[in-house]
């Protein structure tokens, strides 16, 4: 076994093995359990990076593969350049989140259950990132759906259970739609591999145009729920009842990006040019553009800190979908890069929301006044990430918007620039008030008199991760032009996809 396949196996299996170990260690062996979790996350992150290295030095079409037979299609993992982007993002942020969660959950109960299912979620995300075909992708996709549920309802309160039910009401029918789409596609096209540039033979358009359209709709329905495309986004704000690490890693990175990543796979690597031939792509672009504006508008109206972030996520995810749907190497590169960019920035913000809630019991934006002076590191990191998402250079969000704008002009779809502009204004409109309250207003709400105004920066295990991810977000933007930055990598992938 070469190190290529070994890295693939370690990246995909370690989270699941970690989960088993965590479950077995149980509630009371906390130290050992934490050590196991950290070791597992570190090994996974390292292996994911190794997979990326493997993808980099392998010739197209000769990427490392490992798997076995299942249903005449195979259960196959492969480290290709697109997949490893998501795998590296999920793996590395898992390590960071594990540190954060150790701090965040230090006083909570049911930690074995929490960390166990958390590991399964990450493992599923990495598994679906590295899936070589739709069947494998779907297996991990649904595993992710199921393993998220215990995390959403973690607190066990009626509100949490209600949020969990809402989540299921969206996720399960979506899974069913996806299943039918995937099976149907296999019926008419045989085993569906992910191949850069699309794997469906173009002859199918003549014979199965209707079926292909219906299948595309089913697949988008199934993936669109996790990608929180309007009108399938309703579960995401409801799922904010989950503990902060879940919102941070899963509802800003792993779960939702599984949806957009799936859309990218289907549009770029399954349908390819067929999507345009069938006239499906413009519709997807329209939905994505609408979701961008819609999410931003809804975010404006939220006072609940995490819900505002959730609607921001709804909006930001559609940047990725839009980039994929525009159809051109630069736009696709923007989409793939944003997978990483948004992850780093949004996870910072959710970490912040969690830290604020945990340390000073503030859950509403209207109560954030003066918090900047009390938690300067935390709020500083938040501000950096927020400015980044708005698209102020040189932070990561700017790189995305630049690439996306260029890509849309290149593809002759300049209207996207208008969407970007409007969205940026709205981003600013819902994030700058937070920054303003935190830094430029004095504490006025009741907790200030109760707790005083001294610095209450949280547990180091929480502060360090969020500062780190904010700095990573900054670095991704500053170094966007450097080799191996997400943006450069994304352009490499995009040129593979479009044969440029």
């Amino acid at each position, binding site marked *: 076994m070469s190190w290529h396949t070994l890295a693939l196996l370690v990246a995909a299996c370690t989270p699941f093995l970690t989960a088993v170990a965590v479950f077995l260690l149980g509630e009371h062996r906390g130290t050992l359990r934490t050590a196991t979790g950290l070791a597992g996350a570190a090994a996974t992150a390292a292996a994911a990076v190794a997979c990326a290295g493997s993808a980099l030095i392998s010739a197209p079409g000769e990427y490392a593969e490992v798997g076995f037979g299942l249903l005449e299609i195979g259960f196959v993992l492969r480290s290709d350049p697109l997949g490893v982007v998501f795998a590296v993002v999920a793996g590395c942020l898992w390590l960071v989140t594990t540190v954060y969660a150790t701090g965040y959950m230090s006083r909570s109960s049911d930690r074995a259950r929490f960390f166990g299912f958390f590991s399964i979620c990450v493992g599923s995300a990495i598994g679906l990132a590295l899936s070589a075909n739709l069947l494998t992708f779907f297996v991990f996709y649904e595993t992710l759906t199921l393993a998220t549920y215990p995390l959403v309802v973690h607190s066990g309160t009626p509100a949490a259970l209600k949020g969990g039910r809402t989540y299921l009401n969206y996720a*399960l029918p979506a899974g069913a739609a996806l299943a039918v789409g995937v099976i149907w596609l296999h019926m008419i096209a045989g085993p569906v591999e992910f191949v850069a540039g699309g794997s469906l033979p173009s002859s199918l358009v003549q014979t199965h145009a209707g079926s292909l359209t219906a299948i595309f709709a089913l697949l988008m329905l199934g993936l669109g729920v996790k990608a929180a495309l309007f009108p399938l986004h309703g579960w995401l704000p409801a799922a904010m009842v989950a503990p902060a690490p879940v919102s941070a890693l899963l509802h800003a990175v792993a779960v939702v990006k599984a949806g957009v990543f799936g859309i990218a796979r289907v549009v770029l690597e399954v349908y390819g040019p067929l999507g345009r031939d069938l006239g499906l792509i413009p519709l997807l672009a329209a939905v994505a553009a609408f979701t961008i504006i819609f999410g931003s508008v809804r975010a404006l109206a939220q006072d609940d800190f995490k819900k505002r972030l959730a609607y921001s996520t709804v909006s930001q995810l559609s940047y990725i979908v839009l980039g994929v749907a525009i159809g051109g190497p630069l736009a696709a590169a923007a989409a793939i890069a944003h997978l990483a960019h948004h992850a780093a920035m949004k996870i910072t913000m959710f970490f912040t929301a969690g830290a604020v809630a945990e340390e000073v019991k503030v859950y509403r934006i209207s109560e954030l006044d003066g918090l900047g002076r009390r938690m300067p590191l935390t709020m500083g990191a938040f501000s950096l990430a927020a400015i980044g998402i708005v698209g102020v250079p040189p932070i990561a969000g700017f790189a995305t918007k630049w690439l996306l704008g260029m890509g849309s002009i290149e593809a002759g779809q300049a209207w996207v620039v208008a969407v970007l502009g409007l969205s940026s204004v709205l981003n600013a409109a819902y994030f700058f008030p937070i920054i303003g309250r935190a830094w430029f207003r004095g504490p006025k709400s009741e907790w200030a008199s109760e707790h005083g105004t001294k610095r209450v920066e949280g547990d180091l295990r929480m502060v360090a991760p969020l500062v780190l991810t904010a700095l990573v977000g900054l670095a991704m933007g500053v170094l966007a032009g450097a080799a191996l930055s997400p943006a450069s990598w994304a352009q490499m992938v995009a040129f593979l996809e479009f044969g440029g």
Partner: protein
Amino acid sequence: MPLSEWVGAQLPALVILVPLTAAPVAFLGVRLGRPVALVSALMSQPLAIALALEVAREGVLRYEIGGWGAPLGIDFVVDGLAATMILVTSVIGLLITVYASGYFTDQDRYRFFWPLWLFLWASLHALFLSGDAFNLYVCLELVSMSAVALVALTARREALVAAMRYMLAAILGSLFYLLGVALLYAAFGSLDMATLRGAIRPDVTGQAAFALMTVGLLLKTALFPLHFWLPPAHANAPSPVSAALSALVVKGSFYILIRLWIDVGSPSVAPGTAHLLGVLGSVAIVWGSIQALRQERLKMLVAYSTVAQIGYLFLLFPLVRAGGVAAADAWTGGVFHAVSHALAKSAMFLAAGTVLARLGHDRIEGVGGLSRRAPLTAMAFGLAGVTMMGLPPSGGFVAKWQMISASVLSGEWWWAVVIVAGGLLAAGYVFRVIGRFLGREEAGDREADTGRSPRTMEWTALALALGALVLGVAGQPLLDLIPIGAPALVAGIGVTP
């Protein structure tokens, strides 16, 4: 002759004889029950695996009992289907045996469990191997008799009445079947299934025989609307018995049904009837799931889930008749569903049994927060639920994949709609319980908890649930085994393109 060679030649007989010999021994020695059952269970395991490997290597095996050969004598016929059922029975049987050894604390009071259970086990193996229509009747009676006696074992009134209802339905079912056998013999002069296959004609007698046998077997398989006896019997039996009943016993009569319809009688059955069975199966899926959603007791919920899951098995009949690749997919998918349901359902009942053992009741509203106190049991139930919902990664998903494939291929897409809808309904009742498990404890719930759940009970349930899950990714060997020696309607077809 070396021992291994002898064992190899005698495998079909040995898989039956091991539990069949253990049964009277377990009855003879009052304290021998548990050890004898465990030894027998551990011996069945390698034998079943060896048998499956033999079939995978050599193809269909025939074993002539008494050296006479059918149709004068009785033959064991071991094809992929039979080997699969034997394999799954011996795996589940072992785990149920281990579970039961922890479950029955009052070993003296429940000493008759062991011989009855071993008889049940032996008779299931006998049923799966038999190639003779009348011998199948005797096997059916053995299965029913031991199953009913096991249901009544606690002698609680609900259990007794449920057992009686079950008994009456089972005997009536057997009589219908036996009448069919009489007609088949009178008209076509044989009892051997292989001989009958060549001789059978779709005339009045042939059709009447099929109608009678089908009704009898449907009654025993509890297909809607003949399911009335199943929920009380499965819910009120001791939990290891519930597991065996839902996982294995209902599959016994179903097994004969598919042998009859798809193997023996393919030319003589009208397509309309196959569709009728499909429709009844569909109604069972919806009706059973809705009933499961409405139950207040955990074991009743699981029992109604069985009513629903049985429905999927019957989609096999219309789908197989489409022929071609669709038939091959439907055959493998249907059998695979039977297998994964067997694993998952036994896991569910065993988990429910642990809940009952801890709390002294199984009211769903009273299980709040149990995942904190009995995480393994909650996990077992949840993982088994994945197969019930037909979601990946689980054997249920692989089965549904194939059945949906078959329905798309055959152009009868409405079966796919039923399959998908059934999965969502199943999610409804599964998450109803899981939500409780993960939710808060009500006042008094914790006090009611005796904390009694031996490892033998928690781990066996989890092992079964994990087995159902593993089938979802690593089920290919089984998918290859099932079609070996499949009926002509299904066989002779290559793999799906």
